[in-house]
């Protein structure tokens, strides 16, 4: 790997891999040839789930902290949107201007995430899963029982994005571009920051927290800060989610959905920020079209089996599968050319993450 690229801090145009260009063109042009349904419910929804799963990927892939509460954080932002902004339920709905509502909701979610982090990082590894799962369930129960603030079982409806610049942002095409902007923004941020000082530090802590202490890093603080950043990503995901659904209720933050987010991240792959989005696309396609292929009753069986197979046989998810496939192709090609330096020429600018352990 070329270290100039790693540490230069700027990427020149010719460094961009053709696949990235193709993907970018496809994503931008997508609404021009897809139906509203595919733009909104497949496209935008995949991007939203991908964004929420990205926050988990960042914590788990870089920080080694598998949090099942990322959906809860997103749901918290979604609830704040309904509580501070407007809804149609005659409960709360303080009617703050939309921009203030968004800012406060995202920050609130980030603080909530930080709190979860503070509670769970004091213990390590497996504890994180258990504690975040318990937090997710506690939040679910709490919003279901609390009517004064969260309107209990019914939740909120009628939460809508503003009409801005003459555009109603919940129309499929504008909403798709909105989701795409948020998703690409965070994708790029996570991708870039993975090689920043903070990002390297986080990965180093994942590899060896004790050594990081011995280098002068405050490991606990570093981890909690990761929860803060993940909370911002998940918070934006939650804002988009509530605009997408137009509503939020305890069902939005249920345990099964929280586990879906984990499934998405794991199936997609946790070693590169593109993984969660791949996982989300696969999940959303399956969720929508499984009923045409198999009996819908057994949907969870399909999802569970896919998840189990990935965990058992391809720990790096779809991404790992693809890398392995590509390596094999390249190996064959190089073997024919007699080139031994198979692994030296890695893919474009993906940093050290894409290499296997």
């Amino acid at each position: 790997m070329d270290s100039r690229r790693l540490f230069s801090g700027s990427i020149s145009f010719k460094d961009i891999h053709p696949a990235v260009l193709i993907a970018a063109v496809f994503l931008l042009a997508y609404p021009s040839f897809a139906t509203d349904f595919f733009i909104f419910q497949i496209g935008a929804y995949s991007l939203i789930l991908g964004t929420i799963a990205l926050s988990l990927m960042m914590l788990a892939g870089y920080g080694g902290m598998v949090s099942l509460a990322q959906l809860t954080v997103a749901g918290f932002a979604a609830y704040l949107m309904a509580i501070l902004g407007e809804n149609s339920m005659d409960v709360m709905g303080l009617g703050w201007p939309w921009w203030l509502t968004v800012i406060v909701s995202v920050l609130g979610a980030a603080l909530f995430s930080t709190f979860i982090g503070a509670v769970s990082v004091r213990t390590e590894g497996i504890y994180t899963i258990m504690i975040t799962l318990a937090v997710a369930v506690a939040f679910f129960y709490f919003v279901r029982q609390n009517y004064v603030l969260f309107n209990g079982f019914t939740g909120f409806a009628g939460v809508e994005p503003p009409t801005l610049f003459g555009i109603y942002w919940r129309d499929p095409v504008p909403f798709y571009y909105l989701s795409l902007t948020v998703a690409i923004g965070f994708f790029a941020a996570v991708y870039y920051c993975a090689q920043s000082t903070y990002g390297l530090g986080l990965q180093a802590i994942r590899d060896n927290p004790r050594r990081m202490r011995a280098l002068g890093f405050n490991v606990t603080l570093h981890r909690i800060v990761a929860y803060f950043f993940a909370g911002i990503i998940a918070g934006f995901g939650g804002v988009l989610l509530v605009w997408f659904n137009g509503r939020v209720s305890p069902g939005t933050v249920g345990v099964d959905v929280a586990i879906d987010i984990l499934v998405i991240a794991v199936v997609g792959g946790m070693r590169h920020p593109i993984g969660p989005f791949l996982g989300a696309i696969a999940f959303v396609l399956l969720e929508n079209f499984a009923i045409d292929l198999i009996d819908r009753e057994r949907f969870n069986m399909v999802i569970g089996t896919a998840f189990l197979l990935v965990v058992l046989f391809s720990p790096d998810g779809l991404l790992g599968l693809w890398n392995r496939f590509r390596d094999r192709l390249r190996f064959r090609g190089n073997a024919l050319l007699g080139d031994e330096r198979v692994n030296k020429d890695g893919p474009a600018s993906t940093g050290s993450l894409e290499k296997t352990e």
Partner: protein
Amino acid sequence: MPGTDALSRLQSTGQYALELEAVSRHFGALVALADVNMTVKAGERRAVLGSNGAGKTTLFNAITGDFPTTTGRVRLFGEDVTDLPSHERIRRGLRRTYQISLLFNGLTVLENTFLACRGVTRGRFSLRRPKRDDGSMELAQSLLEAVHLDDVKDKQVAELSYGQQRQLEIALALSGAPRLILFDEPAAGLSPTERTLLVEILQSLPSHIGYIIIEHDMDVALKVSQRVTMMHNGRIFKDGTPEEIENDGEVQELYLGHGGGHG
């Protein structure tokens, strides 16, 4: 030498890099460190010898704060750090290496070293990628040259040979501006050539950098140290110049007698 008169001097001067006062560490009923008193002057090079289980590594863990002490006080450069977490102690100029290499396998050699340099400076939470002319990055580059690892700096740690990993351990300990380094058996498992290299590196350290080295290899230990502390069963057993220790009858009997196999 340790004792009440040492205590009276502790508060004042700050000429000591490290002062341990009645430090103990218990694991349940097991006493790993018992009432250890020790002082190391700034810039002093000290060897700690003792058989396996004598409490040497526990002593290091107590100094760095990897594990808390049961009783006693630890002072670094005149400051009481007993209640400080280990990263705070590191930021005061303390470094250490580990007996078993504890490196970041997912990162490259350069990234490892860069983090070590950045650990004691500002910008640990920076979200920018480090530039080539970043202070810590330049420091890391020169460090890698110093330990002869610059040709593998873009490799991942997992790909390095054992000897290279040990060298990297030392590079990490030398990064930043260390004032006192704890070396935990740096020569273990190295080839004779690599040992020579190690001794060279240690001897070429600037004089203001002191260190404590745990070493089984007597040759290495005596070559690179000015004073030697002998430990046995969690206690300090002897303390003196290399010559004194080498010629001490009790030491000969207790340590060299059956510990000689190491060297």
